[in-house]
């Protein structure tokens, strides 16, 4: 306030650009100074708000309340963070937090949620959808009933159907069963004009499709006679529904047999004799998916073998790629090798190919009768690279070695170059042999930086689904097992095979199994990282 009185008034004060003076004079909130930066911010926040608002309305329209709530939180958070003066730190943290939430926390929580439901084939939507689908599937055209050319008509906004029955034009609405209509103009079998009613043209029909398709005009006062309905607004048929839904009792009743279907705790309408109506809907089933992993005897047979192979595969993959990568890195790190840059670039080449593509190419090359390896390299040999259980396992390790060593090579090359030259030099001065230098100095120093990456590589290979799926598809399969899994299946590809390829898709079960795998991988990684920390103490 006192500043205002000192405001440049006299001639001795240095001339200042007026907007700045005003800004400094009032309070310093950017919300009150319309600088260019503020306008940019306003525009950006407006865009974010608009998108979030759109998301909110969409979420509400599909009744996803959790999503809607998170949208509201997002809108509030964004506006508070960027317009409040007290939220300086939040301005920088918010984008990161938002991405963390969307990509990590939301996905993890959703997977966990799905793991506790029976989401999958036959139970993939809400109860309301299931009821609608069951009713639609069980409304059948009365056998031998006629097809009626139809005119959709309206009167004071109420829709009706006009048809010609037994030579007589008739009209009716949802409330009013068909009754003779006088003075109707009929062309062919179709009513084209009706006094007191508007006959809708195609454009008008297209405008209220839902209402027309949902309209049922009773044929007579007797409900058993069925009702007239249409799907294309030009032909009507007499339908009768086999099932009726009683909203108050929440039951489905078969009108012909009298059987009552009541909702069970697994998201289906079920009769007393155990028969269920399809589709069902998604419900929470508790720990059922988790316990099933241990109690389903069909899974028990090949499980131990798959479990052991998963560990063997992940360990061998890390070991082979690391040994080869390290060896090449050491060799090409030696200044006496000529053309190191070119050779190094060539070595990284396999790394530049998409892994799944390479796996497919290798699959072709390893084909028993027409593959490149047998036909050309082995001159027409008949080696079942992918059909013999042990050779298939060997092939997988070999192909993964080809795919994975460039990464280890890169990592080791980088780590080698970070080892200070004077340490190596002093070792040599002390008379250590080249082998001794490698073993006692280079390797321990290298492991400090590389060991965490080896743990990560183990975790990656533990779930290396793409390679297995593309190269062998898990095959060759075990003979006669009650679930179709093979000698080269690892846990994650076994989950895929059981939950998706065995006919019915079971998202809930797959989520539960992947959470179990995550726990295993997480525990191993945790243990591994703790071990690697000890290396740093050297």
């Amino acid at each position, binding site marked *: 306030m006192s500043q205002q009185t000192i405001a440049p008034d006299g001639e001795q004060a240095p001339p200042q650009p007026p907007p700045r003076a005003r800004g400094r004079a009032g309070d310093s909130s950017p919300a009150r100074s319309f600088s260019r930066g503020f306008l940019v911010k306003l525009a950006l926040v407006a865009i974010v708000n608009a998108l979030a608002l759109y998301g909110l309305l969409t979420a509400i329209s599909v009744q996803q309340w959790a999503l809607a709530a998170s949208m509201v939180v997002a809108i509030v958070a964004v506006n508070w963070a960027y317009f409040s003066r007290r939220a300086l730190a939040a301005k920088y943290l918010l984008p990161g937090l938002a991405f963390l939430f969307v990509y990590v926390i939301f996905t993890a929580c959703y997977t966990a949620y799905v793991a506790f439901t029976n989401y999958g084939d036959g139970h993939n939507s809400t109860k309301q959808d299931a009821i609608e689908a069951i009713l639609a599937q069980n409304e059948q055209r009365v056998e031998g009933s006629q097809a009626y050319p139809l005119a959709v008509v309206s009167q004071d906004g109420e829709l009706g159907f006009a048809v010609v029955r037994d030579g007589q034009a008739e009209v009716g609405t949802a409330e009013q069963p068909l009754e003779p209509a006088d003075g109707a103009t009929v062309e062919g079998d179709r009513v084209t004009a009706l006094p007191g009613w508007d006959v809708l043209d195609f454009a008008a029909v297209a405008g209220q499709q839902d209402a027309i398709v949902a309209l049922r005009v009773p044929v007579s006062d007797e409900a058993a006679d069925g009702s007239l309905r249409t799907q294309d607004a030009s032909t009507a048929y007499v339908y009768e529904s086999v099932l009726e839904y009683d909203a108050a009792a929440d039951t489905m009743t078969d009108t012909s047999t009298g059987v009552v279907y009541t909702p069970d705790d697994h998201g289906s309408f079920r009769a007393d004799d155990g028969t269920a109506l399809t589709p069902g809907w998604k419900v929470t089933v508790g720990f059922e998916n988790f316990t099933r992993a241990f109690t389903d005897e069909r899974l028990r047979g090949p499980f131990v073998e798959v479990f052991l192979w998963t560990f063997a595969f992940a360990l061998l993959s890390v070991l082979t790629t690391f040994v080869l990568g390290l060896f090449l890195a050491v060799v090409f790190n030696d200044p006496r090798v000529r053309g190191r840059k070119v050779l190094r670039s060539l070595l990284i080449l396999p790394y530049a190919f998409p892994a799944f593509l390479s796996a497919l190419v290798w699959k072709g090359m390893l084909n028993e*009768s027409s593959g490149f390896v047998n036909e050309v390299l082995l001159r027409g040999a008949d080696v079942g690279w*992918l059909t013999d259980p042990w050779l298939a396992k060997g092939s997988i390790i070999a192909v993964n070695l080809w795919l994975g060593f460039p990464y280890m090579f890169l990592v080791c090359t980088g780590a080698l170059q970070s080892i200070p030259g004077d340490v190596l030099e002093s070792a040599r001065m002390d008379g250590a042999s080249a082998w001794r230098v490698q073993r006692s100095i280079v390797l321990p120093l290298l492991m400090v930086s590389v060991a965490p990456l080896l743990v990560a590589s183990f975790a990656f290979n533990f779930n290396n689904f793409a390679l297995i799926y593309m190269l062998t598809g898990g095959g060759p399969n075990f*003979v006669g097992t009650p679930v179709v899994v093979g000698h080269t299946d690892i846990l994650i590809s076994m989950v895929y095979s059981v939950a998706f390829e065995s006919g019915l898709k079971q998202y809930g079960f797959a989520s539960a199994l992947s959470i179990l795998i995550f726990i295993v991988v997480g525990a191993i990684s945790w243990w591994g990282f703790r071990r690697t920390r000890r290396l740093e103490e050297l």
Partner: protein
Amino acid sequence: MRRSIPALAAVLGLAMTLTACSSGGSGDTDADATTEPTTAESTAPALTGTLTMWVDETRIDVMKPIVQEFQDETGVKVDLVQKASGDIRTDFVSQVPTGQGPDVIIGAHDWTGEFVNNGVVAPIQLGDVADQFSPSAVQAFTYDGQVYGSPYAIENIALVRNNELVPETKATTFDELIAEGKAAGTKYSVLLQQGDQGDAYHMYPLQTSFDAPIFTQDETGSYTTELGLGGENGDAFAEYLAKLADEKVLDPAIGGDQAKAAFEKGESPYIITGPWYTTAFSEAGMDISVLPVPSAGGSEAKPFVGVQGAFISAKSENPVLANEFVVNFLTTEKVQTELYEAGGRLPALKAAAAKVDDPILAGFNEAGATGAPMPSIPEMGAMWQFWGTTEVQIIGGQAKDPVAAWNTMVDNMQDAVDKA
């Protein structure tokens, strides 16, 4: 209620735009007001809606001109979306409940069971047109007494002969056919693709000739959930498989690509395959004939018949337009003929099929005349893996006792059906 909110949002948005316009200047609003009625009048009959349709890459080229024609005729704009054939079916099942799915999806009849089981397709009413289709085509899309798809093309596998190597086929049994093939002196006698996961589809004509269908059919031709491939007939087929493997007719290393390449190189006079490969053979200038597959087990060899068609989403917001396209447009003789000319598959409509004079397609038609539609019941999904795996294990020799392996497979299949 649910649909009213986007509508509300749209109205709000519109209102805001209008307010923005009016504040912008009075001249603009005047112009709007004068042009509005005229545009409404002129566009009303021409453009009356938009349909979204999903097609996979194998069928999209066939559909493009048809969709354009529909658009020209009715003024309904069709938004053709290409989906990958590996994902289209799964995406449809998962997206329809969220309201993100299409109005119409083009696909194969054996998707019906899964779609109905998930409540994502709406039943359609073919009405009197139903009688004009070949019965197996409509039956293929029928599930629990309701029709869910409008068929447009039929395809099945048959025996294809290279006329340059063998000009005439006298064989009446599969064994005689192998003998004929061997007499031709080529590398293979008969090509029957397998691959390392097995191929029960291409093997099915031989299996049915032993009277061992995958599921039994009731008197109306609908599939029951009762397995039909067990018992003595199944045992006999399992032994026959082992015999064919001994004779080197079947080989797990020969998948579809390998079989096709070998036939094109003239390494075999016979191949059992479908129209998807014969177009390539004809284009390569080969002289081929298409014949029914000879019986191996004494009964008729019945291949699976696959039917292509259109489904309507259970949550379509344009049910009338979708029905107009699927039921009233796609079933006309003109459109079915055009689809045949573009796609090279036998039309499902009898009148259009009668006009087909291509001898290759006629051969497929004859071979498929006795065939049964592939089962569309959801239980079928669990069968393929057991089936192909066991067959390839018998052929490859991993299963030492073919009959025991076959019976274990039947037990496992039964178990899968019971737990489904």
